[in-house]
Each structure stands twice: as structure tokens, then as C-alpha cells.
């Protein structure tokens, strides 16, 4: 595309016909909101209860029927789910026994420890050796420091419970995702069939499917694990499909020319060749698992998540913060370890160095196991000595009180200003919009961006919340999410632009957003609640922090990816730096930036649901309180509504980005 083409040919003041649609839509929307309440028929202002479809009740009675009376003849559905539950419990119990509880015989207070869990010092030695094996000295040091932190601050047992769940779910999620991905590559129809499920599994808030899991598998770690695996598996499926497709065609031709069977081609050629990319997927699975395991502590996963939850409920800031930091430490350790593993999959090492490393690691592991056996003989040495423990909880509590006492008026002023000037007006505006107009508008935008199919899809999805009677809660969700996304996009795009041209700054920014993204959603809430108490403003900050990363990343990527010749062409035509940014970089990076904002919207939605814990009044609260009341129908319907908001945004933004890309032709 030529640079000149970016300038409209017509005089600057005239309206581009392509923009008429958007301007018209904005004017009509504003007019409708300003109409007096009586001007619209009552059914348009408030969706009549009589028109509601009792979806929630249907789902509830269906699950009730499923669990109480459905039967396959020989056995009931309940038998089946309990059998699956038992089966899944085996690896999980094993992992928990090894890492946290030890092998126990008997129940409750009569329990006798048959064999202890790995003691903390064995774990530190083994993890350090493993860190050294995959990532060298730095990672080894990091692993040792991180685990020691967990021991010193008394988070050991909780952390190990969490770790056991994460490990088992990650293994199941990675293997399952790999197999499903491979099947999708082999059978195209399966890929098409799986796509909507993958979308829903990723956009539906975790809360919403904790509940069905609870009904199917009962309260406890297994339900939590199934929910975790379902949530963490889709990215692995996607990564597998992409990675296997990206293997050069010649490799497969080679396989066939050397007379490989299909199985040999898959396992000896495609999978090993794609391994570095696949490991990126494994990393994602681990991080998502950790995130969900924390949330799933509500349905009995236990561990660090439970500690944070109880601390948040009792507003014990210090304790919550400590557990939160422990989660952060665990997250960073897992992430760095998985990343090192992914890097290593592509790395090459000289033979003798590899042998030396192997010898070192295996002797360290042997020592760790020896210590473990020793604790079986002398149980007294196993626990971390109480006297060596530290707790910073009281200090954190004091620190927070000090901040609140000293800066109360400032913090309160910020909070009130944002609430009164931004949040409340936007909320009023959204609630004033009549539902038929919103549905119409969404449909019209869908038609404009992607034709009839898209219009129909997004229109139906937009009508769903009205249909099931969740319209006000949905609008509050859209308002909070919308404000958060706008703020996150403004911040993210500017940081992205600034950082794109400066490699040193970018490295710092990258570390910050990497860390922000490894943290489980839960953790965000703790410090913000401390400063601003509960409410929409707290939720807003948490959402913005969590969702800003992709906006930064995609913007920086889009801006720095532009072909250098185009920049040179700009410089040669005498552009100033500013002109290069506004006339060349930004327009060319727009599709990428849109995709980043798309991700931001999805992340914002997933965080939004978590913020139900700090008392928002939206769909997140719906699912959360449905969970508390074990009301399956209500929880699932609200969850689907959230998923639909995410999918509408995703479809529309993707269509806009695709349209823009198509108009520009293939990338330069």
C-alpha cells in the first residue's frame, strides 16, 4: 500500500461515506437514551418477565434428572460419574500423598502415616537439581530460593497441595490436548466440530462450570481438577494444531518416502519436530491450571487458594497477602521451569557436557530420595521447624493501616472522583439503553463487518441475556468491562508504542507484563482491596491491571513488525517522527492492535467474574452466588451470558481486523 493512499482524496472536512454508518449509529443511540422514559413502550425498557424463557429451570431440572434417575440400563449416570471420579482420584491422591499429606491408612484422627510425604529439604534439593538440569545455575538458584521462601513463611503444606493439583492437571491437560489436537489435524471435520466447544470452554467463566462439576463429581479435589483440565486444555489443542501444521510438508513426505507408517510419522517425526512449539502450549497449560486451581479451592481443591479465600473473607489482609505472595512465587517458579523446559526442547548440547550434567542431577536426586527414606525412619526430622518460621503478616497489616490512615483522604478522593465522573454516568447510560435497540445495533454491526452469518450469530447471542431475564446484570457487566477495556487499551497502546522502538525499555516492560500475566487472577484483588475496599472501583483497577498486558504486547509487536522499507520511505518523504507514528506505524499496526484489544476484552471478562468476590453486581455475581446456593441452572445461564459477551466481542473485533488485513493484501 502506498503512503499517499492513507490520506483521503476528498477535502478534509467532508464525511467519508464509510463512516456514515458509525456516525448514524452513535447519533441514534444518544437520542434514544435522552428520550424521556415514557416515550418508549414498557416492554422495550424492561424485558417483560412473561416473555422469559426458563432456561435456568430447565437446566436445573435436567441435571436433577440426570443425577437422580438417568440410567444406561446396567448402571446409572451417577454410577458412571462416580466411577470416573474414582479413576481420576487415583493420580491425584498419589500426587497429594507424595507432595503433601504422606501415605495414610485409616480415617480422621485414627489415621496412621504409612509413609511420609517428601520432606521440604528433599524437595528443595530435587527441585534445585531439576532446575539446574533444564535451565542451568540461575534457574537452580531461583528454585531453591522460591521453595525456601515457601518453607520459611509457613506456606509449605498448602503450597504442596496446590502443586500436586497443578502437576496432575497439567499432565492430564497437556496429554489430552495433544491427543485431541493430533486428532483434529488428522480429521478436519473434528476440528470444525471442536471449535465452538473450545471457544466456550475458554470464554465461559470458571465459576460457571465449577458448579456442574460439583454436581457431577461431588465436592472435592476431583471436581476441581476436572474443571481445571477443561479450562486449561483448549490452548494446548490450539497450539498442537498450529505446531503440527507448521511442520514443513517435506518432513511428512520424507516419512512416507522412508516407508513410515502413519503412527511412525506422527510420533517419530511430526511431534518431535514440533516439540519446541508444543512446549509453549504445555507452559500455558501449567499457568492456566495454577490459575484455576486457586479459584477451584472454593469447591474443595484446598491449598493456597483456600488460604487466600478465607483471608479475604475475614479481611485478614496480612495473611491473604502472604498466601498471595506464595501463589506468586509458585507461579513464577512453575512458569520459569516450564519455559526453560520449552527452550531446552529446541536446544543442543555437547555430548560430554550433557553426561556431566546428567551425573550431577541423578546424584542430587539420589540424595533427595535418601533423605526422604530417612524421614520415614525418623519422622521427627521431617517437618520444618516452627522456630525457623517467619511471618510478615502482622507487619503487612500494620503497613496497610498506616497507608490507610495517612493517605485515606487522597485515596478516597481518587475513588470518588472516578466513581462519580466515569463509572456512574456510564453505568446509567448502559442501563438506560433499551434492549431491542442494543440487539439491533449489535446485529447491524455484525452485518456491516461480516455479512449475514456474523449478524445472525452475534444478534442471537446478544438477545440471549434478555431472553433469560439477565439483561440488567449483563449491561452492568458490559459497562464495567467496557470502561476497564477502554482504560486498559489507552494505557496499553501508549505503552506499547513507546516501548516498541526502545529495546531496553521493552525488556523491562516485558518482564512486568510477563509477571502480571503469570499471577492467578485471585492475587490481584488482595492489594487493591486493601487500599480501596470493596466495590466497582476496586474491580475496575484489578481488571485493568490484569487485562492490560495483551494490549501492550500486540501493539508493540504490530508497531515494530512494520517493514523497515516503509519507515525509510516515510523518512525519505520528509516525515517527522510524529508523522511516521501517526501516518505509517499506527495505521499499519491497527489490525494487530485490534487483536490485542480482543484479547484484552476476553481477559477483562475472566477477571470481571473473579471480582464478584469484591461485591460487584454483575453476571459474575450471578454465577458466584449461584455457586454458593448450588443453583446449577442459574449459574450456567449466567456463565453462558458472560461467554456470549466475550464471543460477540471476539467475533466482531476479529471480523474488523480480518477485513482490514484483507483490504491491505498479504503482509509486506
Amino acid at each position, binding site marked *: 500500500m502506498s503512503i499517499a493512499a492513507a490520506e483521503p482524496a476528498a477535502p478534509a472536512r467532508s464525511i467519508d461515506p464509510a463512516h456514515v454508518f458509525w456516525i448514524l449509529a452513535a447519533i441514534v443511540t444518544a437520542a434514544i437514551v435522552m428520550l424521556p422514559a415514557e416515550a418508549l413502550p414498557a416492554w422495550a425498557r424492561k424485558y417483560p418477565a412473561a416473555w422469559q424463557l426458563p432456561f435456568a429451570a430447565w437446566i436445573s431440572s435436567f441435571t436433577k434428572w440426570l443425577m437422580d434417575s438417568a440410567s444406561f440400563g446396567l448402571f446409572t449416570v451417577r454410577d458412571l460419574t462416580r466411577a470416573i471420579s474414582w479413576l481420576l482420584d487415583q493420580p491425584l491422591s498419589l500426587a497429594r500423598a507424595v507432595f503433601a499429606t504422606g501415605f495414610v491408612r485409616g480415617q480422621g484422627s485414627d489415621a496412621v502415616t504409612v509413609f511420609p510425604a517428601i520432606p521440604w529439604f528433599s524437595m528443595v534439593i530435587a527441585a534445585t537439581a531439576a532446575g539446574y538440569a533444564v535451565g542451568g545455575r540461575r534457574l537452580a538458584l531461583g528454585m531453591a530460593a522460591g521453595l525456601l521462601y515457601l518453607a520459611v513463611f509457613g506456606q509449605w503444606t498448602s503450597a504442596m497441595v496446590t502443586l500436586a493439583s497443578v502437576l496432575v492437571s497439567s499432565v492430564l491437560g497437556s496429554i489430552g490436548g495433544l491427543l485431541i489436537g493430533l486428532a483434529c489435524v488428522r480429521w478436519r471435520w473434528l476440528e470444525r466440530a471442536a471449535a465452538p466447544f473450545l471457544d466456550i470452554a475458554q470464554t465461559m467463566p470458571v465459576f460457571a462450570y465449577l458448579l456442574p462439576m460439583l454436581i457431577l463429581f461431588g465436592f472435592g479435589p476431583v471436581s476441581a481438577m476436572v474443571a481445571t483440565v477443561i479450562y486449561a486444555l483448549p490452548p494446548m489443542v490450539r497450539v498442537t494444531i498450529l505446531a503440527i501444521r507448521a511442520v*514443513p510438508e*517435506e*518432513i511428512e*513426505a*520424507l516419512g*512416507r*518416502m*522412508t*516407508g*513410515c*507408517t502413519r503412527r*511412525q510419522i506422527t510420533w*517419530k*517425526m511430526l511431534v*518431535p*519436530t514440533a*516439540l519446541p512449539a508444543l512446549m509453549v502450549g504445555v507452559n500455558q497449560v501449567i499457568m492456566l491450571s495454577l490459575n484455576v486451581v486457586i479459584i477451584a479451592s472454593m469447591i474443595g481443591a484446598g491449598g493456597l487458594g483456600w488460604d487466600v479465600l478465607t483471608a479475604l473473607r475475614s479481611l485478614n489482609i496480612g495473611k491473604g497477602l502472604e498466601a498471595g505472595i506464595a501463589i506468586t512465587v509458585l507461579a513464577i517458579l512453575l512458569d520459569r521451569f516450564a519455559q526453560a523446559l520449552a527452550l531446552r*526442547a*529446541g536446544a*543442543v548440547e*555437547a*555430548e560430554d557436557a550433557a553426561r556431566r550434567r546428567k551425573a550431577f542431577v541423578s546424584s542430587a536426586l539420589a540424595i533427595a530420595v535418601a533423605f526422604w527414606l530417612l524421614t520415614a525412619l525418623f519422622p521427627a526430622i521431617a517437618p520444618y521447624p516452627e522456630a525457623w518460621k517467619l511471618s510478615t503478616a502482622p507487619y503487612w497489616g500494620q503497613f496497610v493501616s498506616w497507608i490507610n490512615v495517612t493517605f485515606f483522604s487522597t485515596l478516597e478522593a481518587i475513588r470518588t472522583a472516578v466513581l462519580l465522573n466515569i463509572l456512574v454516568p456510564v453505568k446509567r447510560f448502559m442501563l438506560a439503553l433499551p434492549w431491542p435497540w442494543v440487539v439491533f445495533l449489535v446485529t447491524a454491526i455484525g452485518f456491516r463487518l461480516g455479512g449475514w452469518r456474523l449478524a445472525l450469530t452475534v444478534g442471537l447471542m446478544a438477545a440471549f441475556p434478555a431472553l433469560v431475564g439477565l439483561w440488567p446484570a449483563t449491561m452492568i457487566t458490559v459497562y464495567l468491562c467496557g470502561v476497564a477495556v477502554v482504560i486498559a487499551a489507552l494505557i496499553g497502546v501508549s505503552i506499547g508504542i513507546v516501548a516498541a522502538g526502545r529495546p531496553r525499555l521493552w525488556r523491562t516492560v516485558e518482564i512486568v507484563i510477563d509477571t502480571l500475566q503469570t499471577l492467578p487472577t485471585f492475587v490481584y484483588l488482595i492489594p487493591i482491596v486493601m487500599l480501596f475496599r470493596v466495590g466497582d472501583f476496586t474491580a475496575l483497577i484489578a481488571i485493568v491491571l490484569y487485562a492490560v498486558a495483551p494490549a501492550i504486547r500486540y501493539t508493540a509487536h504490530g508497531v515494530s513488525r512494520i517493514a523497515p522499507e516503509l519507515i525509510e520511505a516515510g523518512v525519505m518523504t520528509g516525515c517527522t517522527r510524529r508523522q511516521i507514528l501517526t501516518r505509517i506505524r499506527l495505521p499499519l499496526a491497527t489490525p494487530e492492535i485490534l487483536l490485542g484489544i480482543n484479547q484484552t476484552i476476553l481477559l477483562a471478562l475472566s477477571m470481571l467474574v473473579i471480582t464478584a468476590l469484591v461485591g460487584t453486581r454483575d453476571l459474575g455475581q450471578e454465577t458466584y452466588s449461584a455457586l454458593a446456593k448450588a443453583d446449577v441452572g442459574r449459574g450456567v445461564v449466567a456463565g453462558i451470558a458472560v461467554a456470549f459477551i466475550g464471543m460477540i466481542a471476539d467475533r466482531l473485533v476479529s471480523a474488523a481486523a480480518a477485513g482490514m488485513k484483507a483490504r491491505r493484501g498479504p503482509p509486506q
Partner: protein
Amino acid sequence: MSGPVLACRGVAKLYGSGLARFVKNGRLSADPERLAADGVTAAVRDVDLEIFRGETFVIMGLSGSGKSTLVRCLSGLIEPTAGEVLFEGRDLSKISERELIQIRRLQMGMVFQNFALLPHLTVLGNVAFPLGIQGRPKAERDKRAREMIALVGLGGREGRFPRELSGGQQQRVGIARSLAVGPDVWFLDEPFSALDPLIRREMQDEVLRLQGMLKKTIVFITHDFDEAVRLADRVAIMKDGRIEQIGTAEELVLAPATDYVRSFTREAPRAKILTARSVMRPADGEDFAGHVPAGARIAAFAHDVEASQKPFAVVEDDKVIGAIDRLAMIDVLVGRELKAAR
């Protein structure tokens, strides 16, 4: 065995939907206009050829000419829409998958344009890979692989990984791997197109050297006419999915069948292609300065003939069959159309 190792009879490969309606009795029954009207592309059509044991057969064409599709039909990687591909007289599309796997394992080797080395295996592992697929014991396959690696001049680099090697070295690994099973037919699909010109020459010499030792049947794909001429016993020139002409380099230069072929041969290094026989004139009992064999390339003796006032005799089986003089040399070197014997 005297019959062709590989043969094509009316081979066509179409891409599009509802292809069966264009095939009658195993032959393509539609003309190009009809195919184009129905939105079907014919990557390859009407190909008849025979490749004989021990010959180096080069398929030359520009990108999109269908040469890669054709070689994939020949190696059985894809099945032609119409026509048959005969390997040692047997139709590849009629034999079972199991037999095809056996043929590929034991009788065929292939070198790929982008090397297709497995990144997670060492040089040794890559070369031994096809032997492992056959289930040979480890000691045997390592020994064989080491021999092959030495053969292509990479001895001492067995423990390296592909990304540690230069492009030329990587392709040497590809060559060693394709030869490890001792194939009868050796397919090379644009093996040197991804390499720099100097390396490319070196690798062509390598192929000539290996062919001198191993005497394989080679099917070599290239888009470079000079490369084709350097390596080939016979060349097939392809355009738009059809074969324009098959012949030795000399035949193509002397008698291009179409203008398309002529556009390549016009710039060809004639002195290296033409033999004494094709530029000589009838001898009329004159005095000779010396003699050259009838099959010798012009480049081999051009200097001597030019330096001499008198013509040279062209000899075959100790008999003088013609004469060659400086004028003929100059004709060849400046690329004048030859009116000499065809």
C-alpha cells in the same frame, strides 16, 4: 533387466472437485479449455516417459510447471488422477499400501529442497533414521550411517545437530540419509535450489562423483537449465504440466522441439554440450592437424582446433567420419545456428 525402471503412461494430476468426470478408461478425457472452464487446474497432464536403469534423468521446468507434482507421482507420494506410473513394470496405484511401504523403504530414496532434516536428531540420527524405520539393529544402522556420512564428506560431524551445519552441509546430510538404505531409484527434488551458487556447483560435482561410484537411477528435479545440462543423461522440459521435449542436452540444443525449449537452449553453454559429431562436416581427404573422438565435447578440444590452421579429423572406431575446423569452433562459441548434420 532391460525395461524401464520407471515409466509414466498418460499421467495426469488434477486439482479441483468432481474430478472423476474428466477421466475415461484411466485416461484424461478433457481438453485444457474444458478444465479451465470448470475451475479445475491440471498440475500435470499427458505425461509419457520412461526412465532406464543407471541413467540420470532430469526434469526441468520453471516454478508452476508441474515438475514437483510429477516427481511426487513418480515416487508414489501422490496418486495421479489419470494414467499409470509403473515401477519395475508394476502399477504403483494398484499395489497394496504395505507393498508400497516396502518399496519406499528398500528401493527409493529422496532428497528434499529444504533438506527436511529432523531438528531433534543429530547428523547420525538423521542418517540412521530410515534404517531405524526398517527396524534394523542399532549397531548395524549406526555403522551404515557412519559410512554414508563419510561418503558425503561429513566424517567427524556425526554428533552435530542440523542447525549447527551450513546449508550445503545440511543437504549433504540429506543426501547421506537418502542413500543409507541403498535405494535403486534416487529422487532429488530441487536439492540445491536453496543453496548459494558456488555451493550449488560444489554439490553438483558431489552428485556426479557419487553417481560415478554408485550408478543409481536418478530422477533429478531442477528449475536451472545449466544444472540440468551438467548432470543429465536425458532432460525432460516441462511447461504448464506437459512435457515439451525429452532428449539429451545435445538433442535439445540441436533440435529444440518448441520455441519454449529454444528459449532455454539459446543461452546454453554449447561448447560443453555439443560433441564433435554434431558440428563436423564431411571429410574430403584433406590434411589433418590431429584427431578428436566423435563423442568428445567441443570444450575439450576447442583450444587445439582453434590454434591450428588445418582441420582436425573426427574419429570413431579408428575410422575418420568427418572433419572439424576453426570456423566450426567459432560458430559454436558465438552461438550461430548450426547447419551441420543433424
